[in-house]
């Protein structure tokens, strides 16, 4: 069974483990190698799974691993709303 970890970028648990085994062992590098946490959910759906896998594979605690920089906006915002152009 394929365990999907990141729906936005369609990444499975195996994909994440493979990246960790290639040496992407910190959360910032793992994000930028796999693309996880960069899709529409911005990590809200996947980061906890990824932290668990990283913790299991590296033996580090979730606190030690930390989280990636949280980027704005929290939820996607359309350009016409930002531009103030409602027409």
């Amino acid at each position, binding site marked *: 069974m394929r365990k999907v970890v990141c729906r936005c970028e369609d990444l499975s648990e195996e994909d994440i483990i493979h990246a960790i085994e290639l040496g992407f062992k910190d959360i910032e*590098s793992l994000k930028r190698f796999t693309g996880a946490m960069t899709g529409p959910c911005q990590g809200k759906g996947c980061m906890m799974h990824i932290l668990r896998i990283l913790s299991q594979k590296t033996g580090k605690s979730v606190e030690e691993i930390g989280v990636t920089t949280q*980027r*704005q906006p929290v939820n996607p915002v359309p*350009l016409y*709303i930002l531009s103030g152009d409602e027409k």
Partner: protein
Amino acid sequence: MKVAVIGGGISGLGVAYFLAKLGAEVEVFEQKYLLYGASGRNSGGITAQFMDKELIEMALRTMKLYEKLQSEIKFNFLLRKGGYLKLSDNPRELEKEVEYQKSAGLKVKFLSPEDVKEIFPDINTNAFKAASYFKDGAVIFPWPVIWGLAKGCRELGVKIYDWTPAEVVSETEVKVKNEVKKYDVIVNAAGAWSAEINNKLGIKNDLRVVKEEICVTESLRPYIDPYIIHSNGLYLSQSMRGEIVGGIVGKAGEKSLDSSLDFLVKYAKLATKLVPKLRGLSILRQWSGVYDETKNGKPNFGFTGKVFQLNGFGKNGMSLALAYAEKASKEIMKS
């Protein structure tokens, strides 16, 4: 030849790769993670539309090197050659620029807004007056460039230390975790942090730091071919992942990595004016980056004592750095 490279961005990893191929023993020190600096925060525009013969040559060489290294290292840089469009509200100035570049042998064209519409039908022809089109221009995804270069470096025996701040204590000594290590040459490839290294060593430089903000939309099936930059500072392009990546050219002075709502609102206004159809697209994420630039727009390049300067690429690092890194490796091996 033992070389320490400070900075794990495109110039640092680039010079490390070429040096290793020439037989040097190389160590790269990156204070944070790879991609923390400008190499991991830019929009990947690749062009040779410069106002200087050397820069044009180096940009053309950099484009060749991307293709060469992709196959040499066996890593896909997600390079997409869809052309590079410079739009301007000042047709006379732009036409002069195009004439100069043509005389330098660059295949660049001066276009009217109607001509641009043929390249990109969704563009608003009222939002600019003229364009310069470089058909060999491209968009590259900076993340795989850096991962690929790092892979290539490691396979050649280069040691890359990430999360390892290195203090350059003299022209040949680097202090890492309280240990002082000695090298034949130190390469200052620290991007926005290069000036700090030079200042500490008393090396004169005119580097200044520029902050730039950028954002990305949700993905669409790739349909915007060229990388587009406007004289009002707006730029946008579509990555091979389908996201529309865009920003506004930054201003010198600030060094923070904060993201502002002011930027997002300004970007939304300029981007939807230029491409009205984008108005329904949502912004997923915004961030900022810092880069170092020189006063004359050319990189800070060459030996200052035993320290080799490979910095000051301004906003053109992705277009220029590989060729300068290659040139640096030859000069370092000759020293």
